[in-house]
């Protein structure tokens, strides 16, 4: 408590009483039952993306001129951006916070710009682990699964009985997807993950050749195989979204009803399914060989993408490629247009120190740190009114129940 000024008579009393010292002694923090948590979070666009792509992250890299990092980040979460950039129903844009201000960020257009930019990406050969996986069918699910297993160091071979890779995507009309674009996308995917793709393959489980008999695991891709493909006896059905562990040596990936039959706009869901399948298959392979115990953190983050270091993109001349991409693909934005669009992104989920919270806090209980890198809530005085969370344009502040 501060010293008290004693008022002895009415004439000493001011007309309009006010404090003679700070009110800091009045610690109103114990009135609070919800506490503002200032922490970076997944942006609404990413939350709504079936593949969980960190959209503000790669947009921010592009905006800052580091197109290569942006592309790498995108590819780490989505190995077929040229296809999603043309086919996906972009639920990310539906949840874009900018819709409240003017219009959503054209995520799909930027994705497509980046994809077309990186069609000639070169890679370094990555180190391998002693695991062999065969994926049968080269639909988006199979390719995605192969990609993530390849990035993790498995030796992966994709076999497709058809002459053209792409599975169900092959049947799409050329005006929906240019066959050349599909070829670019698939080529980049197999180069990045250092995997082998064999089309027109003869698959005979009754008399398996060396490849099929010596492989550690076989995965059947429902988006890559026709319905009359005869699933071998002993194949174990596996839903990547629902089933936690993988059993058997031949895994027949299966999809829930909303993803059947194949729907091209749902491509990000198939990519996510392949990604999850790869993760669970990889954990299973490691566990079976006893090379490594399954870390609980891996189970907690089922949608975590591969480490960006797993995708090794050599430095390339972005400007040359951009010029080439523009010449190649009609309808793809040029670099300038794409950069303009990335500048509109609010980077939701990431505090950019706009300090709206600081100016709106009625109790002056949230402030910019001395080193000016973050805001801090004064929990001794914050009453938990929640105005900061309401005003935060990026959803970084949320009101949480917390034990004191």
């Amino acid at each position: 408590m501060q010293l008290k000024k004693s008022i002895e008579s009415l004439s000493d009393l001011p007309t309009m009483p006010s404090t003679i010292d700070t009110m800091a002694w009045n610690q109103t923090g114990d009135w609070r039952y919800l506490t503002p948590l200032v922490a970076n979070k997944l942006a609404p666009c990413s939350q709504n993306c079936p593949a969980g792509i960190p959209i503000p992250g790669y947009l921010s890299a592009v905006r800052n001129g580091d197109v290569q990092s942006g592309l790498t980040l995108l590819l780490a979460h989505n190995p077929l951006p040229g296809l999603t950039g043309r086919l996906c129903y972009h639920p990310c844009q539906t949840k874009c916070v900018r819709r409240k201000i003017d219009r959503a960020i054209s995520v799909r257009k930027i994705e497509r710009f980046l994809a077309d930019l990186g069609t000639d990406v070169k890679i370094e050969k990555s180190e391998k682990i002693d695991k062999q996986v065969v994926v049968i069918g080269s639909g988006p699910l199979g390719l995605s699964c192969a990609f993530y297993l390849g990035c993790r160091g498995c030796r992966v071979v994709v076999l497709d009985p058809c002459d053209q890779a792409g599975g169900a995507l092959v049947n799409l009309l050329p005006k929906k997807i240019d066959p050349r674009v599909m070829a670019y996308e698939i080529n980049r995917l197999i180069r990045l993950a250092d995997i082998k793709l064999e089309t027109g393959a003869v698959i005979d489980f009754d008399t398996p050749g060396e490849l099929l008999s010596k492989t550690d695991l076989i995965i059947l891709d429902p988006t890559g195989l026709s319905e009359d493909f005869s699933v071998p006896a002993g194949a174990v059905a596996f839903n990547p979204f629902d089933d936690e562990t993988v059993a058997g040596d031949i895994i027949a990936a299966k999809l829930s009803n909303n993803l059947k039959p194949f729907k091209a706009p749902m491509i990000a869901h198939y990519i996510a399914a392949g990604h999850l399948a790869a993760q669970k298959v990889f954990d299973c392979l490691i566990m079976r060989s006893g090379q490594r115990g399954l870390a609980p953190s891996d189970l907690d983050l089922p949608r975590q993408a591969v480490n960006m270091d797993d995708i090794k993109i050599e430095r390339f001349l972005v400007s040359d490629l951009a010029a080439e991409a523009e010449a190649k693909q009609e309808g793809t934005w040029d670099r300038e247009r794409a950069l303009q669009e990335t500048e509109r992104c609010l980077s939701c989920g990431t505090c950019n120190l706009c300090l709206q919270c600081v100016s709106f806090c009625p109790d002056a209980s949230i402030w910019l740190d001395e080193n000016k890198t973050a805001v801090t809530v004064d929990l001794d005085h914050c009453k938990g009114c929640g105005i900061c969370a309401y005003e935060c344009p990026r959803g970084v502040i949320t009101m949480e129940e917390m034990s004191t």
Partner: protein
Amino acid sequence: MKKIVTGNETAALAAKLARVQVVSAYPITPQTVIVENLADMIGQGELKAKYMPVESEHSAMACCIGASMAGARAFTASSSQGLTYMHEMLHYAAGARVPVVMVNCNRALAPPWNLYCDHTDSLAQRDTGWIQYYCADVQDVLDAILIAYGVAEQTLLPVMINLEGFYLTHTSEVLDVPDQKAVDVFLPPYRPSNKLDVDDPKTFGNVCGTDLFASIKYKRHCDTLSVEKLWDQTAAKFYSHFNRSHSAVETYQTEDANVCIVGIGTATGAMRLAVDRLRKEGLKAGSLRLAMIRPFPIEGFKKAAINAEHVIVVDRDVSFGAEGIVAQEVRAALFDHHKDIKLTGFIAGIGGNDISVETIVPLVRQAISGDGAAAAAGTTLWAEVLP
């Protein structure tokens, strides 16, 4: 300069002449013209002030309180439902001792919906601590707003200037508009000694324990009581500048009156005509206008009503289950001051009915003769009620 203007136009003009610095208001019939005119004046650059459009009357008053605490001369206007929505902030303004001046355009409260004149809206704010003044004509509106700022800023209490909806707000009369220079001399800029100041941070309106609470309230009560005198002093100063008088109590033929008709607002004009007619009939009648209701101008009232034997109060409002609100005020003022005095209350003109000589005279006759069931029972007489 003389102009023909309505009460609403006058109110806006008065705020401009007072050089208000912040206007924050929410439109409502019959007040809208005031804030529209002020918005125009500010938009055109005729009045250098900040106009703050808000989403409600509650916020309008909150803005005025904040502006006034920061040392600005603040103005707002409201009416009826808007005024009652502002109620919480009215208490705050008086408690915070901010000299905000507000115009209220008296209008009936719903339901049933009625946009016309009725004093219940402002009289229901009697106990908020605001000084309340009820205008009689358009000139009174202009002059009272200027006097109000003078009084408010001396005593640090808010003032509500009441205009009767449509009777005053929308009726054109001749107005003598004073020179801006003359007004500036009468009303210098507001310069509070204690205010919100980023260079001298303080907290206002903070917690107060039991030790000082009563003293703070008592001090405010004393300051409010002294406003009757302060108003008359300021009005006298106004008279010396502009040669027009506006005291807290206005009398007409009360010196020898046995019957004194008391009222507020524009109907006091009709009361004076009624006095003339009743005097022709041989009745020693007089009339008294309470320009101020809070503080109750007890000194002026006692002086004027000293000879009356029968006081008749015309109320354009009602406190349900009791009687007219002004009648209650007058009854309280007479208690213990005058023996053998009779009081009759009339409820007339609510919801926009005109209070004319023809309304008042028969009611006075009925009250004096004691004829009629209502008079016999000693209850309040209602005009314009179905049989």
